[in-house]
């Protein structure tokens, strides 16, 4: 193919794909500022749907739940995942491939399977469905992602630094805190941000393990959409979108920086 023709086709085609990806989201955002309730014709600018959200008790409650679950699941999954990455990177031990496989499962199986499995498990051990079960479930699916990101950071780590510290008399904990931790910190942060977005976005697994009084934001959106389209959902979706995109872009920048 002629290279100029190739360049033009590729630009036009890529542009169309980006349109396909972005236009629906942009329309959703635009109509969250639309005066009419109809969500189809632009009638004028308003912020009233955002105002309505602030008066919606259910939405406020769901926001609180989402932040609570996201906070605890992020902190705990980051701690467990970071330790695991360090351990798996450093040691070879019996059953390593089993652990590898175990961490691989939540990434590859359809989420619904993990959702129903955890539901059955929580009911079986008589743990009431609520914020605690949500946190535990979110930790489970976040850990593998934290491990992958932190491990990637460790791959580029110069082990001789640790050995030097210990030869100079630092103990294991001091070496970890003063040498290893600062070096892998960007990776930990990126992993934590990833866990945070995963938690804030999760629909499928949360759907099964949330109790009636522990709705999260995506679940709230889900139940609202089932009742029909309304600009309030657009407003709520827009907030959720901007929030998560901000975190994700930060995480992505960190990741790209550490790859360089």
């Amino acid at each position, binding site marked *: 193919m002629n290279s100029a023709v190739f360049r033009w086709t590729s630009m036009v085609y890529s542009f169309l794909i980006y349109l396909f990806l972005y236009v629906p989201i942009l329309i959703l955002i635009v109509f969250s500022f639309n005066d009419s309730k109809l969500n189809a014709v632009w009638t004028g600018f308003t912020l009233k749907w955002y105002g309505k959200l602030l008066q919606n008790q259910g939405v406020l409650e769901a926001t609180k739940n989402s932040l609570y679950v996201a906070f605890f699941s992020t902190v705990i999954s980051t701690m467990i995942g970071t330790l695991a990455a360090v351990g798996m990177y450093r*040691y070879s031990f019996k059953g390593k491939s089993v652990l590898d496989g175990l961490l691989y499962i939540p990434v590859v*199986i359809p989420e619904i399977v993990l959702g*129903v*499995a955890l539901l059955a498990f929580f009911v079986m051990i008589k743990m009431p469905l609520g914020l605690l079960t949500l946190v535990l479930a979110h930790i489970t699916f976040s850990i593998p992602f934290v491990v992958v990101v932190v491990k990637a950071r460790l791959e580029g780590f110069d082990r001789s630094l640790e050995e030097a510290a210990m030869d100079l008399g630092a103990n294991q904990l001091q070496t970890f805190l003063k040498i290893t931790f600062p070096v892998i910190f960007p990776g930990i942060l990126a992993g934590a941000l990833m866990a945070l977005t995963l938690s804030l976005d999760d629909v499928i697994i949360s759907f099964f393990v949330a109790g009636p009084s522990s709705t999260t934001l*995506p679940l709230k959106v889900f139940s609202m959409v089932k009742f029909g389209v309304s600009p309030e959902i657009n407003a709520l979706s827009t907030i959720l*979108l901007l929030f998560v995109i901000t975190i994700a872009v930060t995480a992505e920048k960190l990741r790209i920086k550490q790859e360089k």
Partner: protein
Amino acid sequence: MLSATGRWLTGGPLWTLSPVIIFMVTFLALPLLLVILVSFFKRGTYGDINYVFTLENYIRMMDPLYLKILWVSLVISLATTVVCLLLGYPFAYFIARAPKKFRLLLLMLIVVPFWTNSLVRTYAWIILLRTEGVINTYLMQLGIIHQPLTMLYNQGSVLVGLVYTLFPFMILPLYASIEKLDSSYLEAAGDLGATPWQAFLRVTLPLTMPGIIAGSLLVFIPTLGYFFIPDLMGGSKTMLISNLIKNQFLTARDWPFGSALSIILIVITLVLIYAYIRVVGSKKDTEVF
């Protein structure tokens, strides 16, 4: 060096690895084993579980009604995968061949929607496609149509929703494998008289096959579990295996049958992953992160 690693080995693996092992065994391995167990039990009269061994949950799946649901689910997942691949391959190719300074930005623009909530993205399409939605309203205002088109609540709209949600999963592995491709092979093919089309079929396609397979798996497997897309975009006519599982656990309260259906999903996943590892031979290209 030996002494240093020697010191680390005492107790180190224990405190770094026991949290993850305890957690993943408790909240992943045990629940999955429980699902396997429950799938062999009977349903109790009140939606509880009757602990009597039975195969009837699996036999029940042979009912044409359920076989059809499974078949339609597989067809829709396959269609989603094929559409993502056909749309995505040229796109990934163009990005991988774009000037280096733009590549990262172009890729980032794909990843951003991937991070937005899949439910929100589904809702965005409902706004566009429904009878009194954006597309119908503007087409009617422009006088192109006089009756609103029925675009929502059929298998086609489910397909659109799934493609839209999973498209980025296809692009990332495709991009990774196309970018790695050494263009001197293509030049060599050209010098030896291959037409661009022949070069594509004989060189590019085989060399990027790991990316194609990885992307296809990353799209195909999750589609089987996205119950809310058929729920919201498929209407009552479209019942897929994901909705069926959801209903067994939440509405019908037949956990043993729901578990057996989940086992089918696990088996499909394992078979595909196994085939992937056998064909591609390494895990490297599945790592999209």
